[in-house]
Structure formats: C-alpha cells, structure tokens
C-alpha cells in the first residue's frame, strides 16, 4: 500500500477552519491569572445533582468492570478491583452521601486519593468533566460547611456540591463505629 502524504488543502474548508481554530487555541498562552483564581475540579452528576471533587485528588477514571463484589461487606462497598497493582475498594458515592437516587446506572469508577495514603474508587454515572470553581467562592462555602460537601452556587444559579473526601470517609467510619 502506498501512503499518500496529507496535503494541506486536502480537507473540506469547514474542517480546515476547525483545525486552524483548534491549533490557535492550543497555542494560546494559558490565562495564568484566571487559573490562579480557580480550583480545578472534576464535575459529575449524582442523580439530579452535580458534584465535584478537586482534580488533584483524581487519579483515574476507569470503566466500572472487573469489580469483585465482597459478600458481607457494608452496603456502601460495591466491591474490590485492581488498580496499578493495588487492590482498591470501590464505594458507592450515592450510598456514602446517605442514599441518593440516580439517573443512570453508574458505569465509571473514579480512582481518588482522599489524602490518607491509599486510593479508593467511587462510582459515577458519567465520565467527569473538568471545570474551574472560583477559589473565593470555594473558600467561603468551605467555611460555611462542616459536612462532607459544600454547596457552591455559580452563575445562572447552577449549584455544585464540592466533595471533601476526607470528611466523607471519616463520616462513614464514624457511622460504622457507632
């Protein structure tokens, strides 16, 4: 098979235009000031609500498969899976949040590092999208909240519940001890 080199004019005009716009966007210097004011999060739905977790806690988003159920485990434990040679517990986020409804059966696991030196996986209905939350609003919401989530209302009354994974896990452990 002879391979033809790709000619610059070989695409349809609208596709060419799209590629040029995309290249320009990639070449653009990131708006550093803006970045500094934002907390980058992974945003995803749980039922009717939108949740987010800090992007730096997210290690991977993997398909919810090859999970081994663990009979006799607490109900919020979906099972265990292997992730990069480690055995990781998969937990139901909706259950951890106290029993939430859901729209689609979760198909994704978010492997996260809650900050206590080991990974856990949380189920998720869809692959999360990255987005930025204003630091000022995050700080304000965190100051108001003592629970595992803090509510942040964005422009257009869109509400995002930012998860505090350490508190979420602590709360679960506390409940189990009781």
């Amino acid at each position: 098979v002879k391979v033809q080199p790709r000619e610059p004019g070989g695409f349809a005009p609208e596709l060419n235009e799209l590629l040029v716009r995309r290249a320009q966007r990639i070449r653009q210097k990131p708006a550093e000031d803006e970045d500094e004011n934002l907390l980058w999060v992974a945003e995803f739905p749980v039922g009717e609500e939108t949740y987010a977790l800090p992007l730096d806690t997210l290690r991977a988003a993997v398909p919810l498969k090859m999970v081994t159920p663990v009979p006799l485990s607490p109900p919020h434990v979906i099972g265990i899976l292997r992730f990069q040679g480690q055995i990781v517990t998969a937990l139901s986020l909706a259950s951890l949040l106290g029993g939430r409804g859901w729209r689609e059966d979760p198909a994704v696991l978010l492997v996260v590092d809650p900050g206590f030196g080991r990974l856990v996986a949380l189920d998720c209905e869809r692959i999360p999208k990255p987005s930025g939350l204003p630091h000022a609003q995050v700080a304000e919401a965190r100051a108001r909240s003592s629970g595992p989530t803090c509510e942040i209302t964005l422009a257009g009354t869109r509400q995002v519940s930012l998860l505090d994974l350490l508190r979420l896990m602590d709360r679960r452990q506390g409940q189990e001890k009781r």
Partner: protein
Amino acid sequence: MMDPLLENLLAGFVDEAQEIYERVARSMMELEKAPAQGPSFDELARGLHTLKGSAATLGLEELADFAHRMEDVVLPLRGSSKPLPARLSDAVLKSLDVWMAHLRAIAAKGQLPDLAPSVALLETVKPDAPAPAAAKSRKKKNGKGPSASETLAATVARAPEPEPPAAPTPAPVPAPAEDAQADSWRVTTRQVIALLHEVERLREVRLRLEERRREIDRALQQLDRLGIQAETAEARSVLLGVRRALGADGEEAADIVASMEDGLKTISTMPVRTAIEPLHRAVRDICKATGKQAKLAVVGAEVSLDRRVLEQLRGPLVHLVRNAVDHGLELPQVREARGKHPDGALAIRVEQQGNMLFIEVSDDGAGLDLEQIREAALRRALVPAEELANMSTQQLHQLIFRPGFSTKAEATEYSGRGVGLDVVRNQIQALQGHVEVQSVPGQSTRFVLTLPADLGSSPVLVVRCGEHQLGLPMVAVESSRRARSKDLRVGRSRVQLEHREQLIPVQDLGALVGLRQPEVPAEGQPLLILQSQGRTMALSVDEVLGDRELVIRPLPVEIRELAAYQGAATLARGELVLILRPDFIVSTERRADTGLISTRRALVVDDSLTARALHRTALETGGYLVHTASNARQALEQLRHSAYDVMVCDIGMDEMDGYELTAAVRQRVETDSMPILLVSARDSENDRQRGLAVGADGFLTKKDCVSGRLLSEVGSVIARRKGAA
C-alpha cells in the same frame, strides 16, 4: 567523623554481634539450670570471646575490655557441677545488654551508655580466682584480641576443675566483615522491595501468557468447527506455532519467577529465630520478677521472614509473651493445686502457608476471665454497662485490644498501664495483618497473628457460589465429595453429613456469606470437607472450579475487618477472587453472633452492582435482610429455595428483563402473591403500565430511589398485597 570503611564494617558487626548476643544469653539461661559445662558453656565462652576479639579488631577497645571482664566472671566456673549462680548470671546478662546498647550507639553515632556501673557490677560477682594469664595475653598483638587458642589455654588454666581432654575447640573467631568490600554490597531495603514488586509483575505477565495461550486454543477450536479448509490452513499453522511458543515462554517465565523469588528470599529474609531468641530472656526475667515458672517452646523458628516484618514483630512478640506470663500463667502453687505442672507451658508456633504467615503465642494458664474483663471495662468506662451485658464471649475477648484496657488495678513493671494489646494490634495492622484471641477458661489462651508475606504463593481451591467465585486455602481442605441424600441427616435447624463414621455439620457457603438462605445440599452437589482449629465440617458449594497457585494479598483497609476473608488474589484474567478464612467457616461462635434478628426479607434483582449496593443500603436501613441477584435466572434460582417478603427488580436487564421475570414469578404458585416493586432508569408511563400489567405491585424510577422513598414504596407494595389478600 568515622572512616566510611569502618562504618560499613561496624554495621555488619552490629548484626553479627546481635546474633552472638542472643546465643550467649540463651546459653547463660540454660546454665542457670544445668551444670556449668558441656556445649552450652562452650557456646557461652565462644560467644564472649568472639565479641571481645571482633570488637578489638574494629578498634573498639572499651567494648573489647568489657567483654573480657565478662569472660573473667564466667570462665573460671567452667566445668563446675553446679549451675551458674543466679546473681552472677543476672550481672552478666545485664552487662551483655549494656554491651549491645553501647555497640548500637557507636554505630548510630548516638549517646553512649556508661559502662562503669556494669563494670562495677561484674566486679561484685567475679569469682575469687584471678586470671592473670588471660589479662596479659589480651594486651599482646598491638591491642588486638587474643587468638582463640590463647583464650582456650587461659580458660583451661583458670578452670577450677580439670578440663576434660576432649574439650571442643572453639570456632575460629571470624574477622567481621573483613571481606565485606569484596564479597558483599550494601543494598537499601527500597531497592530490594522494588525488585520484589518487579517479580510480582513478572508473575502476572506469566499468568497473562497462559491466558493468551487459552485464547489461541479457543481460536483454534473455532477454526476446527469451520472444518479443514485451505483458506484457514495457514492461519491454523501460525496459531499452532504461536501456541507452542507461548507455552515455552510461559514455562521459562515461571522458572525465572521461581529463581528470582528464591534469590530475593535469601536476600530479604531472616529466620524468625532471631526475633524469638530474645524471648527466652524475657520469659526468664519476668518469671524471676513475678515468682512464676515457665518453659518456652518454639516450633517453626527456622521459618524465614522478611527482615522488615521481623523487625516489626519483635515488639508485639515480647509483649504477648510477657503478657502470657504475667496475666496468663498462675503461680506454681496455684497451678499444682489445679492439677497442672508448676512450670507453665508457653508455646510459639510459626507457620507459613503460601504467602500467609501465622504466628501463635499460647499459654496453658488460667485463660481469659470474662468477669474480670467486664469489671475492667466498666471500671475504665470503655463500654456502657448495657452494651457490656449483651456482648458475646468473642466480643468480650475483643475488649482486651481496646486502648487503656487492663485487668490489673495497679501498674507493675510489666503490666497494668493499659498500654499493650492495643499497641500489638496496631503494629500487626500496620503490617496489614490481624490478631485474634481464643481462650478456654482455666486452661489456655492463644493469640494468633496472621500476616501477609511478600513472597510465595498459596494453593487455593476456587469454588463458585451463585455468581461469586471464592477461594479456600487448600491447607484446610481435607477432601471433596458429592452430596448423597443417604449420607445427609436433615434436621429442623441443621444438616449433618455422615463422614467416615462420624456426623459432621454441613454449612451452605452461600448462606455463610450472606448471599442466600441456607440450602440443603442437592443430590450430587459438591461438598468440601474442611478442617480448621480442630473442627471438621462439610461446606456445600455450587461448583468446584479447580485449584490454583495464588498470591494472597491483604484486603484494603475499608474491608480488612471482615472476619470472613484472609485476603484476595488475582486470577489469570486479572479479576480478583476473595480468599475465605477456614477458621471463619468452621467457627460456631460466629453463627451464634450472626443470629438474624431481621424478620423481613427482600430480594434485589439488578444487573448493576452499584444499584444493588444502593438498594441494599436503603433496605437494610429499614431493617430488611437483603439478598441480591444480578440477573433474572439467578433470581428465579433464589426464589426456588427461599421465601421473600418483597422483590425489588430492575426492568432493563439482559437476557430476561424485569417484565419477563415478574411474569415468570407470578406463574409460580409459591411466589404468585409476593410483592414486587419494579425500578427503572426511565421515567415512562408506558413502562409503568406494562409493569403493572405483568403483575408488579409498584413502579419507581431510579432517580426517586432515595432511601426514604424506596422504603416507603416497598412498605406500600407489601401493604397493598396484604390488603388484597
């Protein structure tokens, strides 16, 4: 600043000296009870001499001199028909401790302990006989220690009684780490651990090679089904070649894994004896302090363990042994009054099964006193009185691991501070292991430490129960057989099997792990005869899938407390299989503890793992006992054996959907009136109507399945059915 060469030699010497120190201490303790002669005395003399000589070689004059002073105290007694005087052996053992501490401090560049008090102590117990020859000989050779023969000669000269002519020649004093630079390298623990992980990866690669080979087998079978065709002949031939090559590669990889494991084992492990030897001394000291008598027996001291694990185990073992003497064993007169030997029997048994390590520390003392535990828990306000009153024996035993727990009203040198078993448990948990305690009042107490070992694999029997695969350590499987109704004795609350002219209990694995109601084994169903902790039982499983060599890994922290599992292992395709603990299976206490108080039972049918978890969360909150099924076929199987108060069923499932399942359930007489709640991701009136038409009692969308709503809907469908009846 210390010369780097000397620093290296010193590090090697500390390890060597530790081993000698333990041997010498052991010999001293033996000679406290036996005449000061024979192999024990030779070992003692040789050890002290080596410590002296090696210290001198490294220029540690102060330590060499100190070791010499210990020799001066001990050697004149060689050949005596009496045991070493207690005062003398105490002084020498204490001096040995100071000697080792001093050496360690030099190596660690820390604060040096003062030797003067120990030197003075040795002077007070020194036999009258002077030892000028030895003292002079040591001054020779530019400060280096005397040769072995010189010391032996000096020893003979000082001996109060004639030495037997065939006195064994002391082993040549090794020049510590003389060849260290030429023959050995210093490697960091991290480097060895990295290699261990690489071996683990290689093992997984080998498993994948096997899987690839099976895939090729499947492809070849498909080609065979097409018949012999010219078009596929070449593909067949290539596949056969690849299959052969993969087989050879797999075997070679297996050989490499085994060889690397052996090599790494040699590098990274030490015999467990090195951690156990000092325990003889600990037992002796605490017996002296408490007026008790004990003999420590060790089985499995030759088992080699990861050096890091061994280091971490020292503290817990010392604690358990001291505890056994101080709390467990009775005073000699009390033991005699109870018909026991005045010497308490302490035993440590070390056993490695595959890559799991078991260490048992047991004593034949008074056992755990439940009343004392209750009183102590109340006194220290660890548990409210009403909770305490309802605790089972096993739960009461667990209290001894609580921080602050102690049955002693006053603290002594050895116990009563409430700091101890909780620390033991924490240290074992830090090693990803766990501790159990078993006790028979008046007879014994046994602590069992279970730890994962980095190397090695364990033979595991993989079985199926419903849709779950579970592993059983082969060491607990005595045999397997098929269930025959003529051998089964089915009672109202239990099933027994006639096995080798004995009746043994039969347990359904599915019920045991909470997957279903207990089932009487069907004709021909596989039964595994298990043995653990002296109990024998038959375990009924759905299918035996075969035995595998698996590396059992500890479970993650979130579920490590589950008593049912030893860990998990990776199967060839990368999926995990849970490994059951045989002691959990045969435990009778557990069954007493898990006596189900729920009267309402729910069956959740959903192909989504996470949906099943959520339904279970909600229903268990409402007091239901929940069983789950991941498809309609499995649900029908469950319904064939068990009765449920309600079924919560997903609509969108493969093969047979929720409508079809509902219709099938309605057709069976046993389940035609069972309340059924259908749930669906879609909120559609058509779906709702169709569900009700096939016989469902209610319909709920998954987004409405918040805990309270699901429970109220379940309550409603049950009430509607009852109303209709």
